[in-house]
């Protein structure tokens, strides 16, 4: 695990709230080795989502550099970032964010619409991704016909279908009961250990954080590693 996948160097992020300037992240340095599984904890409003947005190329830092793989995200245009996201990063949200009008299969195929794959190839790859998350038999179901845990699995399948190196999870178990949460976390662990995905997961749940290799605490715009327990 010597190779570095993502590097943040002197990253600050400031939001203008009315007249007030709020510095959410302050001069942050962070290195994420390829294949790592990091949990990020911290009070709400501490900038965890903002950090994920920067790593995923959804937002740009006010100052500093964000590098993921070969890409220098902080200097890319919006359309370059958009293109980059389609193959390099997968997002998993608290509320799954599936498209209600599409079946599980079609939701998973969405990112592949941005590739040159044929319809047949897209179908095949989406089916494989659904198999990995254990929902091969639910391909034709619509999100409203699935449980919360199943919806989140579909969302995970969608996040991995274009085989990105990095998965960003924002409170992925925040809306699930303990048992279902543990299943989802085990799945993430498998993706990390067996499929080599680098995972950054924001969570409020200390038990969830234990599935990660290490936990960082985010507070008042800075990150702090506590190799606790």
């Amino acid at each position, binding site marked *: 695990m010597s190779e570095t996948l993502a590097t943040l160097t002197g990253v600050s992020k400031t939001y203008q709230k009315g007249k007030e300037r709020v510095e959410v992240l302050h001069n942050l340095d962070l290195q994420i080795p390829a294949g790592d599984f990091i949990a990020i904890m911290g009070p709400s409003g501490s900038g965890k989502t903002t950090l994920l*947005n920067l790593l995923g190329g*959804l937002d740009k830092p006010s100052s500093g550099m964000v590098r993921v793989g070969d890409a220098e995200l902080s200097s890319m245009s919006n359309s370059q970032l958009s293109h980059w*996201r389609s193959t390099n990063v997968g997002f998993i949200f608290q509320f799954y*964010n599936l*498209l209600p009008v*599409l079946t599980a299969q079609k939701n998973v195929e*969405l990112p592949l*619409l941005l590739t040159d794959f044929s319809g047949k190839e897209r179908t095949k790859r989406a089916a494989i991704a659904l198999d990995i998350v254990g929902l091969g038999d639910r391909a034709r179901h619509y999100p409203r016909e699935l449980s919360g845990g199943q919806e989140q699995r579909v969302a995970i399948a969608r996040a991995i279908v274009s085989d990105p190196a990095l998965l960003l999870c924002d409170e992925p178990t925040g809306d699930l009961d303990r048992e279902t949460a543990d299943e989802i976390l085990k799945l993430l662990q498998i993706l990390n250990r067996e499929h080599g995905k680098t995972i950054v997961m924001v969570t409020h749940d200390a038990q969830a954080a234990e599935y990660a290799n290490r936990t960082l605490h985010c507070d008042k715009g800075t990150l702090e590693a506590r190799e606790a327990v």
Partner: protein
Amino acid sequence: MKYFGLIWKNVWRKKIRTSLTLLSVFVAFLLFALLSAIGYAFKSGEDVADAERLVIIDKVSLINPLPMAYKNRIAATEGVHSVTHASWFGGYYQDPRNQFAQFPTDPYEYFSMYPELEMPEDQLENWAKNRQGAVLGRELAEQFGIEVGDRIPIQATIWTKADGGRTWEFDIEGIFETNDPRGSTAFLLFQYDYFEEARAFGKGTVGWYILRVTPDADPVQVANTIDLQFANSASETETSTEAAFAQSFAKQFGNIALIVTMILGAVFFTLLLVSGNTMSQSVRERISELAVLKTLGFSDRSVLGIVLAEAVLIMLMGGLLGLGIGWLLVQGAAQQLGAFLPGIFLSGEAILTAIGIMIGAGIVAGIFPALKAMRLSIIDALARA
């Protein structure tokens, strides 16, 4: 095209709302089809009608007959190449619902006046030889299963016979077609001589004259000369081009075209409001879904395109259906009214215009919601969800 599934599913996100929108698009384009078909007959002018063909009717009303005695004077007028006449018979075949036009006329004169009508030479000769002979258009022959050699009865609604009878029997001697794709063949022609001899009243008159001017003559001048000849007589004439004649027929329906145009304008305006509202609601209620698409890497332009395509698709679905049903109705109307208003026709140009309007209206209805979707900030949209 690979986005079609996604676009299609989004169009049907709210089935009732989409159905209602489709219905209003459907009605608008149905109206459009009917109006433009009628409008085509009204304004057809040079393209449908033969510019060298003039029609002479009574100045007061089309319904008033003209004296048969005018024929030789018209033929002798400078610039007139040939002349024939026709009258309105207004009968039906077997059942009062089987209304189509029948005209008593002169066989050879009529067919040389309308070269677009095509019939085998021997059939024309047979007709000319048989006083009780008649010929009819292919459309009618097929509709009623009538063949050459049949003897068919036509019930008169106006022209009783001198013997008091109302049934006129004709021997079918020929079936004609037209080489003008816009023209109708839904009418029957029979011999004026038989009509004149057998009818109870109105003898010595015809309904209207049709004349052809010589190639070097000015049709307007010929028309003026003829009308001047008959000025101050008992039957003053009004000579006009075939197109104007069709219009005077149509004017009996009042100025429908203008009214329908205004209605159509209002319908299309409402249509834009309805579909614009549908699209902006549809975008508003799935802000977070659009943000997810962008998160996955869909470009701003793709998101714009997807929303616009939804709006255009709704227009095309409702519009093509309306146009299709309109086309069927126009076909039916052309058969019924073909003899009065020969130009009823849904032209290729009108169809292309309608499709252009569908795409244009789709873009107008969808552009603001689409721009909103395009400019959407992922972070704000997801934070709100």
